[in-house]
Structures are given as structure tokens and as C-alpha cells.
């Protein structure tokens, strides 16, 4: 008889849905069905069952082929690479547990390297802005139960965070939002008519790269000051109207994504959005929240934050933590040739980075830790397959609103496959031996 595991956490996006049910086979070894998850989340669980999944580390050979090696050899290669480098870079950490992240940070400090997470190519600019001007935020529960003004700026949750709108923002009937979507007004700011924009009461089709001007125009409109006839392609009447819609709500929230964090102006866009949020609090309650991508990118930022004081792009090469994206951030380090070893875990820079940065990874001594074969594993010298966090092993993760949630183990990993934590512990132990540190 099949067995159903309830209250499973979905290890896909920063929404970290906690109501997934997974139906297992009689022997508890196979995932048969995934209930409640979105299409992407369900696929994640089913993917763990893939037959072609590597079960042993693979070392690249001089002719470009891969040879299976033991975990002992993989630990030795990784430890030697990190211990002997002048400035190793340990990147990723966003799709694994906080426990594994913490071990990784310890390795970085011991080896005098740089540690960075996927925020470097995602919401890092958000973190720069909130260091500059603060952040009035809240939890998703508050949004669900109170928010009647929902703004999605430069993001498309209909495709990227598929259950976000139904669980937290537009549709749910919360404690003070009993009429669900009827009690809410939705504003979407996006240059494209996305599926999210189609749900909006107000769609501001901003000119590409002019979000900063529009955000500042909303701030100007709030103050009742003069505006030019059009800003960022939007007539001023629409901007004054939008400002009134925001002011007239009881509780508002701005959700924003990579459309503003990685387009022209980057951190300045978020800076202006946070300042807009602050000023809206003169009239009503308003909050702002980044739509974090990887399910535990927030978690690695938290771990780095409490251990080193900075949320990403931390350089510990001199023995103390320094943080200055542009200098200590992964793409810059790679493109400028500032690092001499590359370790990636729980992300896929090979698929996301500019080609010159990927080429640089392929030239360096490199290790990729990932349950599957990815573009990154194919440009790295060593691929270490591991258990799937959130499916085959538990661990702590942080939701996009900084709420920590413990992920659940659903099935066992393939026989003999280590978890991220186990592999990193062994690498740390070996580096301690190599460095003569107890």
C-alpha cells in the first residue's frame, strides 16, 4: 500500500511552500505522486527519481572524458585544491541547507578565500540597497491576512513563483482580507504584458531601464510636487493616480524581482523602491519584499550575516571579512582573474554566468557539487554528486520573508551517495589536517 508523507517543504523557490504531500511506493523508495506543488516544484521531486543520476564522483580526464572516482579521492582533490589556493572562491550555497552553508563558510575562512551565493547575480543589489537605506518588511503571513494593495514590480510570479499569488498575495482569503482578490487592488509594473500583468488592476508598462525614474516619480507624486508630462513612458496622470491607489490602502506590499535588481540602475532601483515604501508609511502601512529565487538563498545570506556581518560576496582572504560587490563579487572575481580555484555547490553558474566567466571556471582547478549533471559540472574538473536537500535529506532553509523552515526528508538517497553536509565535513577535516589546524 502506498504511503503519503504530508507537510513536506518544496525545495524549489523562495516561497518555500510547506503544504506538499508526496505519495511513496509500498517500499518507500519511489516517489509516485506529488500533490499541491506547482508544476516546477512537482518536477523537482520527480527528478530525484531520474535513472541516469550519477552515483559516484566523476573526475575529468585529459581527453575530456569523465572517470568515476571514489568519494575519498574526491575529498582529497577538493581539500588539496582549496588548501593550496591563494584565493579560492566558493560559490553557490543557495539550494542546500543552512547547516551545509555554515560548514562551507568555515572552510572558506580556514583556506582564506571568498564565499558568495547566487544573490551575486540575483538579489544582491537588493542587499546593497537595504544596507544603504534600511528595509520596512513583513512576513508573507501578514501579506496574506492584511494586504489590500499588492504591487509586483519587475517580476512575474505567474511563471517564476507559481503559488505565490494564490498562497500569499492576490487570491487568499485572510483574517482581515475575507473577500480575497475582491478586497485587493493589484498593480504590476513591467515592460512586458506578462501573465501576472494580465491579472493586474493597473499595469504600468514602463520603458525598459527607466524603473528608477518611475519610482522616483511616484515619490514625487506622493509629495504633490510637479512632474513632467510623461515619465518612463507613463503619463503623469497615471502616476498621480497610482500614488493615490497606494495611499488609500490599509496595508500595502511591493514585491520586486530581477526586472529591477538586474536591469539598469540595479541597487538604485531598490533604494528608490524602499524609500517609496518608507514614505507611504506616512499615509498607511506599507512594506516591501524581494522575490527570492533559489529556495535557500535567503538562508545563506542569513548564515553569512550572523557569522561575518555581510550577506553575500564576502572576501575572507586576509583573515577578516570584507564586502564590496564589484570587487568581491563572483563574476567580477572570475572576469578579472582574481581567484585561482573555483568550488561551486547547489547552483549552476555554468548555465547562468556570462560565457567569459564560465570559460574562466573551465580554466581553473574546479569542483562542482550537485546531485545532477549540469553545465557547471561539465566545465569543472571534478563533479561530486550528492543527496538532494529537501527530498533525500532534511535541513534548515529560509523563506523569502526570512522565516526559517526545516525541510523534510521524504526518501533515502541512492546507496552510497553522501549528503552536502557529509561531504563538506570530510573536506573540512582533511583541510584541517593539511593546514595543521585542530
Amino acid at each position, binding site marked *: 500500500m502506498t504511503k503519503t508523507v504530508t507537510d513536506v517543504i518544496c525545495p524549489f523557490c523562495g516561497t518555500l511552500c510547506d503544504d506538499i504531500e508526496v505519495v511513496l511506493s509500498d517500499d518507500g523508495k519511489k516517489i509516485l505522486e506529488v500533490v499541491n506543488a506547482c508544476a516546477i516544484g512537482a518536477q523537482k521531486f520527480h527528478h530525484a527519481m531520474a535513472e541516469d543520476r550519477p552515483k559516484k564522483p566523476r573526475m575529468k580526464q585529459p581527453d575530456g572524458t569523465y572517470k568515476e572516482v571514489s568519494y575519498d579521492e574526491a575529498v582529497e582533490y577538493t581539500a588539496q585544491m582549496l588548501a593550496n589556493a591563494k584565493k579560492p572562491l566558493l560559490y553557490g550555497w543557495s539550494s542546500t541547507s543552512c547547516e551545509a552553508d555554515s560548514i562551507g563558510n568555515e572552510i572558506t575562512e580556514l583556506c582564506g578565500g571568498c564565499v558568495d551565493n547566487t544573490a551575486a547575480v540575483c538579489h544582491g543589489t537588493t542587499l546593497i540597497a537595504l544596507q544603504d537605506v534600511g528595509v520596512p518588511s513583513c512576513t508573507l503571513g501578514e501579506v496574506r491576512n492584511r494586504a489590500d494593495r499588492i504591487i509586483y514590480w519587475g517580476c512575474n510570479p505567474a511563471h517564476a513563483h507559481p503559488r505565490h499569488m494564490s498562497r500569499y498575495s492576490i487570491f487568499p482569503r485572510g483574517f482581515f482580507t475575507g473577500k480575497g482578490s475582491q478586497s485587493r487592488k493589484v498593480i504590476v509594473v513591467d515592460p512586458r504584458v506578462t501573465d501576472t500583468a494580465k491579472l493586474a488592476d493597473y499595469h504600468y508598462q514602463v520603458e525598459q531601464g527607466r524603473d528608477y525614474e518611475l519610482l522616483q516619480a511616484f515619490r514625487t507624486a506622493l*509629495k504633490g510636487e510637479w512632474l513632467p508630462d510623461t515619465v518612463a513612458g507613463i503619463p503623469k496622470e497615471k502616476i498621480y493616480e497610482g500614488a493615490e491607489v497606494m495611499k488609500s490602502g490599509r496595508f500595502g506590499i511591493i514585491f520586486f524581482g530581477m526586472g529591477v535588481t538586474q536591469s539598469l540602475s540595479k541597487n538604485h532601483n531598490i533604494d528608490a523602491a524602499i524609500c517609496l515604501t518608507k514614505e507611504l508609511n506616512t499615509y498607511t502601512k506599507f512594506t516591501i519584499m524581494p522575490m527570492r529565487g533559489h529556495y535557500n538563498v535567503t538562508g545563506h545570506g542569513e548564515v553569512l550575516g550572523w557569522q561575518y556581518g555581510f550577506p553575500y560576496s564576502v572576501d575572507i582572504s586576509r583573515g577578516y571579512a570584507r564586502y564590496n560587490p*564589484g570587487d568581491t563579487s563572483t563574476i567580477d572575481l572570475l572576469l578579472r582573474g582574481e581567484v585561482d580555484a573555483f568550488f561551486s555547490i547547489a547552483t549552476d553558474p555554468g548555465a547562468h554566468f556570462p560565457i567569459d566567466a564560465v570559460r574562466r571556471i573551465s580554466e581553473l582547478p574546479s569542483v562542482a557539487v550537485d546531485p545532477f549533471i549540469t553545465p557547471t559540472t561539465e566545465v569543472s574538473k571534478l563533479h561530486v554528486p550528492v543527496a538532494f536537500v529537501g527530498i533525500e535529506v532534511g535541513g534548515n532553509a529560509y523563506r523569502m520573508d526570512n522565516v526559517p523552515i526545516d525541510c523534510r526528508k521524504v526518501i533515502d538517497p541512492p546507496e552510497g551517495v553522501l549528503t552536502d553536509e557529509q561531504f563538506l565535513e570530510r573536506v573540512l577535516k582533511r583541510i584541517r589536517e593539511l593546514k595543521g589546524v585542530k
Partner: protein
Amino acid sequence: MSTVTLVAKAKPQLFLEMESVTPDAFAGKKASDIAELPVYEGNTTLRLADFFEVRGDGGTTAADTKIVIKGDATRLKYVGMRMTAGEIEVEGSIDQYVGAWMEGGRIHVHGNTDAFTGVGMKGGEILIDGNAGNYLGAAYRGDWRGMQGGRIHVKGNAGSDIGYYMNGGTIVVEGDVDVHVGSHMDGGRIVIKGNAKSKVGGQMVTGEIFILGTLEVMMPGFIYRKDVDIEVEGVNGKFALFEGDTAERHPKKKGQTVYGRLYLKV
């Protein structure tokens, strides 16, 4: 003035952090002592002598010491950091953080500088014959104090985010600049003799920005006030005066609201 010449003899594998290369650190030291000063390549501590031939002794004081860097300096960071007096001359191009937090003295770079030149600078002068990178005279990450005093003069172009959180001093760029000039600026003066793109003076509180070339897109929070005849950096002419950024908070002086001033050459 005593001159210490550093002649590059070996290229580092990565980049060198060279905050020890300042007139303050060299003053009162013989060439042999200077050669022993530490430089950092990643987690490794090395000596200046491992990468440079050191010629000449330092002066008795920082003000009495001049440093000349010959050869490839494109992998040197933090040169002239926190210097208070004296001179540094770089004969080629140099990497990031030149003159960061400098308080006095003079730096002359014959080539280009990379990002973060003169971040948090308090005094002194930086002259760049070539181009400057991003974050020229800006604040370091998380700091609300950008350039506070002194002067930066770039003969070529500059990148984006120049004068970020600037609250004193002068930046002059003879060429063109990228986006974000004087964001969050609260004092000081920026003069762009070439063209600017957009986001100029965004979130600006007080201070002055002059654009002698063209501006592609004006920020919405700037209001035209009047035309004025003035002289700036040797150029006389008629400028359109805009005040802003009206989205931002502004102080009051003698009952009058003080805005940031943006001058566009007519």
C-alpha cells in the same frame, strides 16, 4: 623631496593589495626597509621586493616623500590608501581603490584607473590623465559618507555611480560619464564637461552638478528655475538651472528649502 621609485619586475599571478604603498608608510625608511614592506596576494603575504625593484629612500616626512611606480600597475589595488601627504605618480594604468579614503597629498595617474578611485576621500588631489572606472569619489558599501573633500580631475571619461553619497569636494570629468551621477549627493560639486546619460542627481539632497555637454534623460524630480550666467572650471556661459530632487527630503536654511542644483549648459 625624496623620490622612491618602484619598478615592476614580476607580475603577480592574481592581484596585489598594496595599502602599504603610501608616502606615510615610506617616510623615514631606507630603500632596503621599504623593500621589506608587506604586500598581499590573496591569502599570501609577500614583500614589495618580490615584485618591485625599490630605488631611493623615503623622505623624513610623508610630505617630503614622492613615490613613482613604473611598469605594469594594472594588478595593484589600494595604492595611496589613507595617505595624508606627499605625492604618488603612476606612469601607466592602475587598478582599484587608488587614493581610497585619502586625506591629503597628490596622486597623478598617467593612464586609467579602475573602480573605487578616491572612495570616501577627505582631502588632497587625484589627477587621472586617462579614464576612471565606476564609483569615482563614491562612498564605500554601506557608508553614507562619500567623497567629503579634496579634488578629483579626470581628463578622459568616467564610469557609473560617480559621486555616490558625495558630501563635499570637487569631481571634474572632462569627457563623458555613464549613468548615476551624484546619487544621494548632499554637498560638493561635480562638473561633467562631456555628455551624461541619465539618472543624474537622483535622490540628490544638496550640492551642485554641472553638465557642459548633453543630458539624455532628466530625472523627473528636477524643476527648471531660471537661466544663469556663470563661470565653471574655466568655462563661461549660460546655464539652465534646475533644482531637485523633489522626491527627496531637503533641509531648510533661513526659512528657505535648500535643493540640489543641476546646471545644464544652454
